[in-house]
């Protein structure tokens, strides 16, 4: 997955919400029994859509994106984790956990008899070591906030925080955000070192590594001592960067699941009755206008931004780009994160848009230097360029390589002179505040000095300082509403990360394989069965 790919899920590291007086989670109970008498059989092949980065096999190096999640869910296990409709608090290696009323400690009771793939038991000491040595996304914040990790007894571990740490369970349990709660065998890790672990990772997940060709292929086998039944014996993940080849593999039965079917191949899969599409609704796409606060910028006038919103044919873009399987929603923040608000679908009215343009002093439109879509979705930018001509906005498409785009985004306004439209996209997990922090706030990682609405940034600071859950919710909603009411961002649609499933997998509906909550990938691996 690419850095700016909206399928990637990431939390900004910058802020962690301060704790509040309210308790977040109560006690959860164990739901998994010891392995039922299931004999794993058969073979499952997943055709992965990019090359396979070695660091994705090591939860200690979690890069805060969605991609590692696919591998962690097979090889490793967390204390708690996202599981179907449970966003972060499904008991995994911990049979239960308790988050203190004052949000200043969290206690986890390990499931009895759990083992790593090398046969050693999973102990509280492993939990403490994994957490303490974690150096991936959010690691710094966790270290800053954590006072101590206490080994209570041979199956209990307690985290103490310096101050209320309301987001701790979300961070710990969301597999595509942070890897600190994913437990590695401390002794083995120290023995082989980071590089050695990447070559031969040992975890406590449903599948153990048999062999790997770095970047190319991973062979896994069902782990007999996993605490839940694992149904398929062999699991191969093979990297196939070419989409047409992946589809051919599925058609031939060489792969059972393929990720990312691009728009031009969707019909081919649709037309094959043996195959099933799995359109996971994923990241959001919106238009933004860097430097619009400058009075000389034509986008300074709210009526112009409103006119653009009225002109964009969102359904047409969804149809052309995602076979109509995305969602034309109203907010630029996904509604599957904390406090992400629902917003009605935006109307399309080109006549009214023209009228607004005339009222704003642009009856014949104006020139835009560049429309720049997030790489590599260039055709989406072309559609915006084309549609805006209806109200006289003449623009050119600017195509940027991903790394260049990211670098320019981090350069702020000096990298985006003149009149610009960015067709941006992202998918960020956890909470709405990470979207605001990274994408809108003055000085944010991807927003820099593009927008800088002081009133909203002040409210956001207040939000961060508050421990009152009701107040936080209210502030979150006010900020989002304001961005939408003022057309600071013009949301377009949530695209579909389209995957496909072959005939050998047993399922009633595609959501059995792609639960879609928090991740665009297939899981839980241990539950997949062959027909």
């Amino acid at each position, binding site marked *: 997955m690419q*850095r*700016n790919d909206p399928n*990637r899920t*990431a*939390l*900004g*590291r*910058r802020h962690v919400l301060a704790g509040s007086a309210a308790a977040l989670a109560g006690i959860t109970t164990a739901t998994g029994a010891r392995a039922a008498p299931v004999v794993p059989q058969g073979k499952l092949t997943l055709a992965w859509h*990019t*090359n396979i*980065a*070695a*660091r994705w096999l090591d939860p200690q190096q979690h*890069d*805060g*994106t969605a991609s590692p999640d696919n591998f962690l869910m097979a090889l490793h296990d967390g204390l708690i984790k996202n599981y179907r409709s449970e966003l972060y608090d499904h008991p995994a290696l911990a049979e239960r956990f308790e988050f203190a009323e004052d949000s200043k400690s969290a206690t986890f009771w390990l499931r009895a008899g759990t083992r790593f793939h090398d046969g050693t038991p999973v102990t509280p000491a492993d939990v403490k070591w994994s957490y303490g040595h974690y150096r991936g*996304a959010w690691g*710094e914040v966790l270290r800053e906030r954590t006072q101590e990790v206490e080994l209570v007894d041979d199956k209990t571990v307690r985290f103490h925080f310096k101050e209320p740490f309301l987001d701790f369970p979300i961070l710990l349990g969301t597999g595509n955000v942070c890897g600190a709660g994913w437990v590695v065998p401390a002794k083995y890790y120290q023995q082989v070192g*980071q*590089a050695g672990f*990447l*070559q031969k990772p040992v975890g406590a997940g449903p599948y153990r590594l048999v062999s790997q*060709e*770095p*970047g*190319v*292929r991973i062979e896994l086998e069902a782990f007999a001592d996993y605490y839940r039944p694992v149904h398929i014996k062999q699991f191969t993940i*093979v*990297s*196939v*960067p*070419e989409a*047409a*080849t992946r589809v*051919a*593999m599925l*058609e*031939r039965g*060489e792969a059972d699941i393929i990720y990312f079917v691009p728009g031009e191949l969707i019909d081919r899969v649709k037309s094959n009755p043996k195959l099933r599409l799995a359109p996971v609704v994923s990241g959001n796409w919106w238009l933004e206008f860097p430097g619009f606060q400058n009075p000389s910028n034509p986008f300074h006038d709210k009526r112009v931004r409103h006119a653009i919103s009225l002109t964009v044919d969102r359904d047409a873009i969804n149809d052309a780009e995602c076979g109509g399987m995305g969602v034309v929603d109203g907010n630029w923040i996904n509604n599957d994160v904390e406090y992400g608000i629902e917003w009605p679908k935006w109307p399309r009215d080109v006549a009214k848009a023209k009228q607004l343009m005339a009222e704003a002093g642009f009856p014949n439109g104006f020139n835009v230097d560049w429309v720049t879509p997030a790489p590599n979705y260039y055709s989406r930018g072309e559609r915006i360029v084309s549609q805006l001509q209806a109200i006289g906005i003449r623009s050119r498409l600017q195509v940027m*390589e*991903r*790394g*260049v785009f*990211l*670098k320019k985004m*981090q350069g702020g306004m000096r990298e985006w002179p003149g009149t610009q439209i960015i067709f941006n996209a*992202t998918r*960020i997990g956890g909470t709405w505040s*990470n979207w605001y*922090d*990274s994408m809108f706030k003055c000085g944010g*990682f*991807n927003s820099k000095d593009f927008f800088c609405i002081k009133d909203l940034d002040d409210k956001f600071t207040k939000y961060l300082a508050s421990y009152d859950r009701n107040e936080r919710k209210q502030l979150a909603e006010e900020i989002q509403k304001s961005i939408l009411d003022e057309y600071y961002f013009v949301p377009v649609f949530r695209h579909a990360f389209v995957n496909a499933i072959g005939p050998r997998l047993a399922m009633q509906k595609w959501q059995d394989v792609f639960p879609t909550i928090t991740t665009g990938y297939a899981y839980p691996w241990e539950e997949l069965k062959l027909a």
Partner: protein
Amino acid sequence: MGQFIFRRTLYAIATLFILSLTIFTVVRLTGDPVTLMAEPGAQEADLELVRAEWGLNQPLPVQYAAFVKNIITGKLGQSFNYEMPVSTLYFQRLPNSLELALAATLISFVIGIPAGIISAVRVNSAWDHVGKTIALLGLSVPGFWLGLVMILVFSVWLEWLPTSGQGGWRNLVMPAVALGWYFAASLLRLTRSSMLEVLRSEYIKLARLKGLPAFAVIALHAFKNALIPVLTLAGINLVVMLNAAVIIEVIFAWPGIGRLLYEGIFQRDFPLVQGVVMEAGIMIVLINLLVDVLYAYIDPRIRLTR
């Protein structure tokens, strides 16, 4: 002779120096790899930490010196992405690329050389036109298109061959044909022109006048001499196929060096890209050096005139 070898070796070192400087500079023009290595919300301080970890905060001359040292020691640096020595990755993939390149070379030989000979011997005949058409198609049909069409026809429709990946000989057929097709065309053209030149020479005329059978004239006299430039080209082609079959290896998910290079470029993995390019450069320079020395050994005029 010793002086000649010494001079040519100096040229080779200078070439590698320029190549190393070029690739070192060019990969750094593509942007900062740290933006791809840190998570989207990372602060500047986090990015600095990553830069320091990988030595990217050092002045460029220091980074270049480290790069050269890595080449000399043969490690080629540590891949950002795989956290392994680039040399290990390279030599893991080398046998796969060698397998593909040798198969593609064989295909290019089987198609290119006989077709080239026939075109030359039957110049301006229907055979020649067929040969020229093959050459034209080979040079103009892109390998990626041919590869995708072959997957569709031979894997999906006919179900004769697996779509991709490495395995038995059946996995090798389509990528080898897709890769060898272009080189077959270039060999065909060179064989044809080389044969035409030889067939017009005096000693061939003499052989014919002596009453030697046509087959003997072509096979024993003409082909033998026409083969020298063809083999030289084939050697260079093999090195190119070995190191630069990027698109074919990506389409067929073939775990070779070309795909390693693609992965390096995709992830902006400087040491990986630099290492693969340098290895390819070293191979080509060494082969050229060897050929030069052999030529000079065979023909003393070369070492005297150069």
